[in-house]
């Protein structure tokens, strides 16, 4: 209770006068990111549809923007920014280690199964 709020975002580039102002600032930022996402999703610029590391560049951009949004929701709305680094690490590190690991092994396996289904002697479209 009554804990001090850190009022800087973007590594101190933007500093707000009060916690309430910071909340509105983060809302505006999240809205801009969402509008960019939806805009890209509707326009689908041709040069972003090239494949990069098995996925379209556009999809990589979406994943990146999602992580940006997740960061600001967790850090400012869930005020992880104001917690001790011990608490922050014990929350974030397990997720940061386990989620990419699980995603990596399962998607790699899925890609392997896809290749098998394409190259195998079994017909899947009958």
């Amino acid at each position, binding site marked *: 209770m009554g804990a001090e709020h850190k009022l800087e975002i973007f590594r101190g580039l933007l500093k707000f006068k009060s916690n309430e102002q910071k909340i509105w600032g983060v809302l505006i930022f999240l809205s801009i990111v*969402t509008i960019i996402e*939806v805009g890209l999703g509707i326009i689908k610029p041709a040069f972003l549809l090239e494949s990069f590391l098995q996925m379209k560049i556009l999809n990589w951009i979406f994943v990146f923007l999602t992580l940006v949004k997740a960061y600001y*929701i967790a850090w400012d709305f869930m005020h992880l920014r104001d917690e*001790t680094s*011990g*608490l922050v690490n014990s929350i974030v590190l397990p997720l940061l280690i386990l989620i990419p690991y699980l995603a990596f092994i399962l998607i790699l396996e899925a890609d392997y199964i896809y290749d098998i289904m394409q190259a195998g002697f079994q017909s899947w479209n009958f």
Partner: protein
Amino acid sequence: MKASTINENEESELWSGGNKPLKASYGKMMMWFFIVSDALTFTGFLVSYGFSRFKNINSWPIADEVFTHFPFLHGVDAPMYYVALMTFILIFSSVTMVLAVDAGHNMNKSKVAFYMFLTIIGGAVFVGSQAWEWKNFIKGEYGALETRGGQILQFVNSDNGKRASIREFSKSIPTDRSTHLNSKGIWFFGESSLPTVSLLEVKEGFKSDNNLLIRTEYLDDKGQKIVLSREESLDIIEQAQIVVEGANLIRNEYGNRLFANFFFFITGFHGFHVFSGVVINIIIFFNILIGTYERRGHYEMVEKVGLYWHFVDLVWVFVFTFFYLV
């Protein structure tokens, strides 16, 4: 005077061991532990969605073509606008929640109540929107046929490339076939409803209209669904077995069966989280009104449900990306 209140609270927040690990109260830390485990549950769901999608990467439905509805705009192709709106509603209700927490720090009861009320409204609107989304998804729009191998065949007009609805082009052929109820035959056989058009009607309608082509569920290298030529279409329609309208847990008209299953499961699980969040928020709201937290001397309870509420918003950000954008 304010400082002395804070000191009192901090003393009462000590854990039984006599200190306060990581400077967090017991309740808040346990809420964080719950959120971490729940985040891993959602990870499991979303990653298994990714697994199925990469496994069927050449035949996965295109989300832009599935979610095209917007309230009061009938027949207008509006991909994603509605989900984007839902995202804004949820982010905004997150903001009102932070404002409630902030007002709680200042012990401003009426402001906390007001912002909690707005949060509840936002959550309720979101759940309602999701129900509407489900309704459109279940009802379907164009209809399709399914082959023996479980592939979905959709129909397009060859002149403009637009989708054709099976209810519009099928021929009307009178039939005696009626819905098989288990009261009228063997009790363990039955069916919930017949499709509005029969397989024969669709086939005959397709054959008599030279303008129609079949679209397979497979994607070309540009990410568009492959449309067959008229000859190929006439060939493959003979393999059709079932008329599929809308979506259920067994088959759906959009393509791969797993697509609808994951849609129902993941958005359903998330929607259930939002619903429980709204219920908890209502309980907290009434506790604010009767002054429970005023007497307790702090509004930490609002902060704890706030954490849960933001988490639900956070999950939606990911669901939005992986279901609707990517």
